[in-house]
């Protein structure tokens, strides 16, 4: 299949414009390779981790009765997740969160379950200013948070600002979810702008994630994968320097990841109750991704798309495969 050659050729072609154009194809090619060799992808990658520790990564805060509507509600949910076995819990604050609200939530959760599970804050770039990010980061320091992620509205792009933020707070920063492609992500580390690297197989594929994991390993740091799915599990099983599988988005009122399409025929699922008593998920053991898709459902609900055969591609020698 020459996945590496395809990866490098598409990288040259797309030049970071749309990495999902590489990522989704790369994952399907790895699924193909696994089926060809009758092995799960993680085995082809040399993987060995059979159980992946998870963090409960919450829905964004809401204002609904019984929901994640207050600092105490987040603390209650963290307690519930701890009792379920989750070793870590990440807060997604409100979209219109104020520093006062965010700080109160970090303290409420920290006071309730701090020291018993790892805690993270991910405002998802909701704070308006750098000063807001510093104020809330200091609350993370007080509660000993494990990481502080994408705090404010630079959208996680400024190396300079996050190097400054690292100088002003103690909590490790997790950036680069919104930085596209391998080299700029690594540049973020080299600029002292993040403590952890972030990547998602959907952006750059399994090939791209394994390159990023190797880059992180060479720098002596960890790569944390964004979101949940079979490709994520297959990758993480083969990455030593990765701490947690992100069970996202979970909520006290929802059992499943309701935003995910119902496309698995096999017994695969992500959701609040998908963990075992140790707070872990397993890695699918079937060939390839290890899941069976419900193509009847997909085709019944199809709204568009195309089929491509030999001769469909643009015949431009500039965009041929690399030598």
């Amino acid at each position, binding site marked *: 299949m020459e996945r590496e050659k395809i990866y490098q050729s598409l990288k040259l*072609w797309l030049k970071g414009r749309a990495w999902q154009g590489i990522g989704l194809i790369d994952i399907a090619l790895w699924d193909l390779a696994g089926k060809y060799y009758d092995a799960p992808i993680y085995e082809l990658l040399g993987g060995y981790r059979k159980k992946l520790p998870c963090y409960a990564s919450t829905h964004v805060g809401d204002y609904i009765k019984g929901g994640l509507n207050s600092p105490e509600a987040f603390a209650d949910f963290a307690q519930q997740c701890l009792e379920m076995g989750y070793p870590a819990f990440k807060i997604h604050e409100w979209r219109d969160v104020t520093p006062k609200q965010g700080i109160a939530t970090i303290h409420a959760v920290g006071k309730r379950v701090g020291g018993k599970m790892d805690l993270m804050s991910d405002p998802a770039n909701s704070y308006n200013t750098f000063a807001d990010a510093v104020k809330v980061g200091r609350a993370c320091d007080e509660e000993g948070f494990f990481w502080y992620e994408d705090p404010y509205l630079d959208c996680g792009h400024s190396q300079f600002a996050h190097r400054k933020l690292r100088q002003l707070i103690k909590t490790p920063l997790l950036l680069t979810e919104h930085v596209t492609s391998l080299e700029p992500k690594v540049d973020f580390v080299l600029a002292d702008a993040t403590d952890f690297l972030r990547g998602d197989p959907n952006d750059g594929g399994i090939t791209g994630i394994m390159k990023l994991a190797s880059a992180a390993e060479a720098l002596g740091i960890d790569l944390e994968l964004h979101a949940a799915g079979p490709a994520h599990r297959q990758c993480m099983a083969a990455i030593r320097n990765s701490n947690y599988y992100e069970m996202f988005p979970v909520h006290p009122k929802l059992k499943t990841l309701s935003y995910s399409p119902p496309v698995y025929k096999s017994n695969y699922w992500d959701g609040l109750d998908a963990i075992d008593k140790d707070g872990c998920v397993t890695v699918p053991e079937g060939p390839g991704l290890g899941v069976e898709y419900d193509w009847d459902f997909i085709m019944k*609900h*199809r*709204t568009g798309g195309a*089929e491509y055969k030999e001769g469909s591609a643009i015949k431009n020698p500039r965009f041929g495969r690399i030598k």
Partner: protein
Amino acid sequence: MSKPIITRTEVHEFEYEIRDHNPVDFIYEPGSVYIGRGTALRIHTDIGVSGEYVTRGLAGAPMLSTTAPWVVD
């Protein structure tokens, strides 16, 4: 085993119901029903083995219309 040759790729966009969840703001919204959109990809070879991947969202679909034909051998 002979080395497989990619003969055909398929890209499908599909819809599904999302209940009690606002997929724009990622908040719990009891009673709500939204239309979610997904992308499905299948890569076929001359030896009958195929590779598949399905994910939520259509973000990758526009670029797949360019890259999916390109991987056919």
